[in-house]
Structures are given as structure tokens and as C-alpha cells.
């Protein structure tokens, strides 16, 4: 069964360091998303990406964040200078259909701990 894969599963970093979280969406999908979930809180939207550009982003997704699809398979989330409050589980998701009519597949998540 096709799945979204994320690496690393857990990363510990020092405040101020750059972090890159990687995702391999399902191969024929075209719409990609990053969400985050701070421990004990709701899943929050960060950014959506289609056709090699950001299609929508939330207030959380400030200048410290960036996304990229460097090749045909990977989709990355970069945090330039991590803060303590960036500690969260980050989920990548992908969708094959153009509209909100199909399943949104999530990866297992990357847990980021900022010390």
C-alpha cells in the first residue's frame, strides 16, 4: 500500500540551529502539505505546496520556515533558526486529487525537540 514516509523520526537540536525535515509523498500525488502538532495540542496547518510553489500558508509559517521539492520525490521543510517553541511533531501529507474530495494521506511524523 502506498504511503508517505518521513525522516528523521526524531531529531534533537540546539536552539538557533537549522533543521531540515524530509518527506517522500506518494509517487503520483501532486499536492503536498506540512502540519505540526505541539504536544497535547491540535494538528495545525503550516503550508501547502503545488506545482513547485506555495499555494497557501498559515501565520505560523513565518520567514524562518521554507519548503522545497528539490527533485521529483522529496518534499522538505526547513527551519532556519530553531526556537524552543518549534518543538513539535511535524507531519507531511499528500493528496492525489485536485479538490478536497479525496483522502489526505499523512506520514508518521518527525518529532523535533529543540533544547
Amino acid at each position, binding site marked *: 500500500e502506498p504511503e508517505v514516509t518521513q525522516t528523521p523520526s526524531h531529531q534533537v537540536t540546539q536552539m538557533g540551529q537549522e533543521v531540515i525535515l524530509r518527506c517522500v509523498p506518494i509517487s503520483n500525488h501532486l*499536492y503536498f*502539505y506540512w*502540519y505540526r502538532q505541539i504536544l497535547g*495540542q*491540535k*494538528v*495545525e*496547518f503550516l503550508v*501547502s505546496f*503545488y506545482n513547485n510553489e506555495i*499555494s*497557501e500558508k*498559515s501565520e505560523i509559517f513565518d520567514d524562518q520556515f521554507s519548503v522545497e521539492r528539490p527533485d521529483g520525490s522529496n518534499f522538505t521543510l526547513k527551519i532556519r533558526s530553531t526556537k524552543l517553541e518549534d518543538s513539535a*511533531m511535524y*507531519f507531511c501529507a499528500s493528496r492525489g486529487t*485536485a*479538490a*478536497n*474530495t*479525496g*483522502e*489526505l*494521506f*499523512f*506520514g*508518521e*511524523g518527525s*518529532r523535533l525537540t529543540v533544547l
Partner: protein
Amino acid sequence: SQELEQSPQSLIVQEGKNLTINCTSSKTLYGLYWYKQKYGEGLIFLMMLQKGGEEKSHEKITAKLDEKKQQSSLHITASQPSHAGIYLCGAAKNSGNTPLVFGKGTRLSVIA
């Protein structure tokens, strides 16, 4: 912005009992998604509802969307320990490529 309210926040049921989780929006929903999350893990898709009055079932889980498309319920029949986890409802604002927004989740525990 669209907010989704889930109730109850947590639920403890005895194995074999039925239960219902609700998800309510103040605005009309285009699509309503139900996911299950085990602690510290990813979101597993359960069902998606789009039409007012729609009902879908998978194994012992049934989800309904009301006629006004503002409220959905998830019903589990004869609960089992494998049903334990956090149930999240997510909703789409429109038919375009807009992201889902999620409720805070309902934590379900099933005791033997």
C-alpha cells in the same frame, strides 16, 4: 476562521460498549474527514463525508454528516481495545486545494 469543536474531549468505555464522538462547526462544511491517531504517531484516515445526510461505515465504525453539513458523528459499535486512540475530525472549507483544519481530538480509552 473555521473552528471545529469535538466532544467529548476524552472518553473511557468498557470493552463491548458503544460510543459516539461528535464534531461541530459553526460554518457549513464542504468535506468532513475522520482520522485516528495513536499517541505520538501519524494520522490514519478513517472516512470522508461530503453530502448532507451522508453515512459511511467501515467495520464497526460509522460516520454521519448532518443535512446542514455542520455536524458529524462517529459511532463505534462494540468497542475493542484496538479502537483506543485519539479521534480527530478535519474539515475542508471549500472544494479547492485548501488545507484541512482539525478539531482538538477525542481521546478514547477502552478498558477490558
